[in-house]
């Protein structure tokens, strides 16, 4: 298991991990398993300002297209360019090389869940 300590989750199944000035955003293991084979991501441009909870892009699997939401506010500094040729990284390693965007000037979102609370939330959803 990857180290999920310090990672927080949105109820829309994105995770965020803050490291100094930078926050990295991805989707959870549960989200990737529900989506199935990821084949394409539509990601924001560098410099775009996002508020917590707004649509940051679209993730497409073989099954369907789904919206992605930014778990925190901030300015996009990077979108994971590797995912262009390897969207399957989101399935294979959602907390590692399958990260999606990085943000700076982060505005926190108090509604995010820690891992334990998120696991309980997912548990409640799948029953």
């Amino acid at each position: 298991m990857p180290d999920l300590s310090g990672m927080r989750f949105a109820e829309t199944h994105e995770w965020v991990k803050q490291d100094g000035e930078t926050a990295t955003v991805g989707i959870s293991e549960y989200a990737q398993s529900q989506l199935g084979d990821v084949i394409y991501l539509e990601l924001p441009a560098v410099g775009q300002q996002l508020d917590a909870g707004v649509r940051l892009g679209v993730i497409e699997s073989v099954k369907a297209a789904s919206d992605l939401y930014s778990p925190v506010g901030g300015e996009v500094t990077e979108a994971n360019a590797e995912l262009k040729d390897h969207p399957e990284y989101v399935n294979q390693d959602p907390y590692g090389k399958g990260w999606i965007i990085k943000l700076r000037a982060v505005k926190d979102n108090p509604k995010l869940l820690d891992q334990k609370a998120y696991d309980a939330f997912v548990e409640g959803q799948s029953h």
Partner: protein
Amino acid sequence: MTAARTPLYEEHVRLGAQMTNFGGWVMPLQYSTIREEHRAVREAVGLFDLSHMGELRIGDESLVQRVVSRDVTRLRPGRIQYAVLCNDAGGIIDDVLVYAMPDRGYLLVVNAGNQDGDFGWMRKHAQAANAARNIGREWALIGVQGPRAVGLVERLTSSELGDVKYYAFVEGTVADVPCVISRTGYTGEDGFELFCGNADAVRLWRVLLEEGRSDGIRPSGLGARDTLRLEAGMRLYGNDMDADTNPLEAGLDWTLNLEKDFIGRDAIVTSRQQGLSRQLVGFKMLDRSIPRHGYRVVSDGEGIGTVTSGNVSFTLGYSIGMAYVPPAMSEPGTRVGVDVRGTAAPAEVVSLPFYKRPHPK
């Protein structure tokens, strides 16, 4: 209504499949990933539970001749035809495989969700009440598809499969299970579809999985079946055609014998005389976006058609789809747009199929 289970349901659960509802049945969507299962079928062999498909047994040749679009009297026993069933207006009720059985009767293999409707349609047009029999719930169907499929089945049967060409079948045994061994499929690969009684399905499935291990066999779900059939340019009933489309629009002219009388024939002839307003075409995306069923096809900002199927092609490495467009826009090479979330993504009409296996037998 609860979804029906095939005799292989417990096998799928044991193999860890994600299940989905399809055509009134609970079926495996995927066991591992759609990408891996897709690749296994293109490069090795995939095993499919297709027991949801419907089977109708019809003894009366004149009934078959009246409802299907092709001349079944030309079909020799042991041979199979792809055909459509139409309503009076020429709309497609279903697409089917017609098997000419050795006893001179016919077997129609029909789509899962249409089997009761098709059966009702047969009975409505039958002279005798017992002319058609619905055996779909008594039979299982297992697909063995991929370049190593023929070798695998050959190791498990004493039937001479060399004579069983594409769209032919024999009755025999596989792994000592009595089967109809049919050289057909819905993946674009060589292989067989094996019909057997429900009670034998688990045994046949397990032996194929075990014996196929050295071939790299993978149980494969409906997810891969859909991406495979799309690459092969095969239409999916309910997506690419339905009762509001006729076979000419769907590009299925080759399934029609307009010299004979069948239900829908006159309407189809009239439609041909009047000229078509739309035609099913294949297209490929020129960017990385993914076309989906229901997306609009656009040209110069105007809506000109609708996407019926679309997805990434794992084999080709770009996105592909099928759509209805006006005949003037149907020539390969024509540039069109696909409305993906409000943006006209560039696409080009291409001829079908998208994928053809390297060395067809």
